[in-house]
């Protein structure tokens, strides 16, 4: 039976509703549930799930709906609605007694000394609110995506005029005054400042800096499009200037995909005037031009962390493209891994939740192997071009095509679990995954992927096969998830945990070459 109910003028954020939908789906007799606001995207999803009923024809994005397909001998719509309300009430109770003003202006009346606004409302409404915040003299962290480019340019120009931060749109990571914003790890405060256009790239660098014993002064996010020709690097330049003037910052790190040429020039002109060392990872970018600008180029995100720490400690930064473990241990690991594979196990399955971490993996592995992906190095390596299941696959599961109507896999790892079910089979040799901890991320990201690997292994065992699983954890001992327990749960599932994404990728490369796959 399919039923739909609509509640007019009841707004809840999408992540809350998606997580509630997921819980309701666990009820016995429930085949499918979608709880959402009446946006075009959600209505398309309802149609796709074949639950569209006439009640939905007049809903607006301000109305909440519950659509469900269920076995009425086991569960009723009333029970589904009570489950929904119970979960919502649990959330409300957590905030009982707190004043939650309806608008930015009323929030400012209540907290007149507020200095930053964090915005994660649907993209089409976000620019207006961000503009209002900037006009009130507030710094902005704009997490929302789907904000038009022309709005981004206008907002950033306004921020520059006013001397404010306009981090985003689509900015997932920042740490201001030691406070992690949105998706960020808990790292100690220190003397390295960073401006980043890539979220998990920034997370990986800050985590490795923390592990090396140093810390961050400020971490400024720009959003992924900042270094495009159109935006002109407005926020990266604003961020670099702030770090150059910041007495607590001694070393500056920049991380991004390669910028547009005109933007690159502006950045190099600016940093050539810096009396602080600048370490740059323009992932896959040209090292020589970075050197000519007087900055230090890097081979990986981890290498950027190591070099920043080295220059801070007045040591000579050297390229790091090896392993923390002694080479003979790595050789042994590779040998044992290859010996566990059967001749018809040939393919890599790399399932990532972090975009920049995927990018780093593909650029490294893609130089010697054909790697199919949703973010392919060349169009002929697009995942749709993979001949059936025969080929190496490396996916960024946080891309839009996999997150329609569900939370980002760093919040809810279900998407990745499903890929294990559908894309790991008897021809799979190797699994490579990232586990990103920190605020914003799932409370047990490691445990969920460990379960997936254990289940895949059990499936293969029936045909006398095993597989090799390699992971890295982007997390610190101060993150809300327990780092030691996270690593232990991965290792208990037989996953080799490497000290960084770069080292995990390099190990995978060595095993692929040694196995001749």
């Amino acid at each position, binding site marked *: 039976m399919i039923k739909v109910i609509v509640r007019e*003028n009841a*707004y809840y*954020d*999408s*992540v*809350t509703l998606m997580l509630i939908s997921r819980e309701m789906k666990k009820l016995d007799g429930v085949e499918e549930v979608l709880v959402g606001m*009446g946006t075009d995207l959600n209505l398309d999803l309802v149609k796709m799930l074949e639950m569209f009923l006439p009640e939905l024809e007049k809903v*607006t*994005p*301000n*109305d909440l709906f519950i659509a469900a397909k269920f076995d009425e001998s086991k569960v009723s719509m009333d029970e589904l609605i009570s489950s929904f309300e119970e979960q919502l009430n649990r959330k409300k109770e*957590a*905030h009982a007694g*707190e*004043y*939650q003003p*309806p*608008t*930015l202006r*009323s*929030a400012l009346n*209540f*907290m007149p000394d*507020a*200095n*930053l*606004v*964090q*915005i*994660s*409302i649907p993209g*089409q*409404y976000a*620019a*207006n*609110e961000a*503009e*209002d*915040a900037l006009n009130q003299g*507030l*710094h902005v962290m704009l*997490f929302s995506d789907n904000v038009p480019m022309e709005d981004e340019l206008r907002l950033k120009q306004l921020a520059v005029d006013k*001397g*404010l931060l306009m981090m985003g749109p689509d900015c997932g990571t920042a740490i*201001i*005054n030691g*406070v*992690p*914003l949105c998706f960020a790890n808990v790292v100690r405060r220190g003397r390295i400042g960073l401006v980043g256009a890539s979220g998990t790239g920034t997370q990986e660098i800050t985590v490795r800096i923390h592990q090396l014993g140093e810390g961050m*002064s*400020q971490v400024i996010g720009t959003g992924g499009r900042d270094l495009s020709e159109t935006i002109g690097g407005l926020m990266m330049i*604003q961020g670099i*200037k*702030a770090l150059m*003037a*910041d007495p607590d910052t001694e070393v500056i790190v920049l991380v991004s995909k390669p910028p547009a040429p005109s933007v690159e020039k502006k950045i190099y002109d600016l940093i050539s005037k810096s009396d602080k060392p600048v370490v740059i990872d323009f992932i896959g970018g040209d090292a020589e031009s970075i050197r000519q600008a007087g900055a230090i180029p890097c081979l990986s995100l981890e290498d950027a962390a190591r070099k920043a720490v080295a220059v801070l400690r007045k040591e000579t930064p050297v390229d790091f493209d090896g392993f923390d473990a002694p080479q003979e241990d790595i050789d042994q690991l590779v040998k044992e891994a290859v010996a566990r594979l059967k001749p018809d196990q040939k393919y890599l399955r790399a399932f990532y939740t972090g975009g920049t971490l995927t990018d780093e993996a593909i650029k490294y592995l893609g130089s010697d192997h054909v790697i199919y992906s949703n973010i392919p190095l060349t169009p002929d390596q697009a995942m749709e071009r993979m001949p059936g299941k025969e080929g190496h696959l490396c996916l960024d599961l946080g891309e839009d095509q996999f997150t329609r109507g569900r939370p980002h896999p760093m*919040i809810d790892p279900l998407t990745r679990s499903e890929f294990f079910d559908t894309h790991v089979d008897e021809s799979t040799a190797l699994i490579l995954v990232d586990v990103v901890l920190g*605020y*914003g991320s799932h409370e047990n990201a490691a445990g969920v992927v460990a379960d997936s690997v254990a289940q895949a292994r059990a499936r293969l065992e029936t045909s006398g096969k095993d597989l090799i699983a390699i992971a890295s954890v982007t997390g610190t001992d101060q993150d*809300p998830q327990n780092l030691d327990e996270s690593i232990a749960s991965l290792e208990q599932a037989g996953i080799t945990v490497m000290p960084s994404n770069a080292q995990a990728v390099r190990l995978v490369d060595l095993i692929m070459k040694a196995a001749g796959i």
Partner: protein
Amino acid sequence: MSVNDLFKQDLKVINMGLESFYEDLTSQKVEAIQVQWKPAAGGNQKMAALLGRLKSSK
């Protein structure tokens, strides 16, 4: 307040959108307030844009 002035202050955050981001801040004892945001003009985008323009020109 310039960016460098912000660096010298305690962060005080207005959060608009995902409530989990607000909860993350309060769990770290960061002063924060959650806006009970709803789409303006009942989700009518044209009307919301007009209202936005009126607000900005104030």
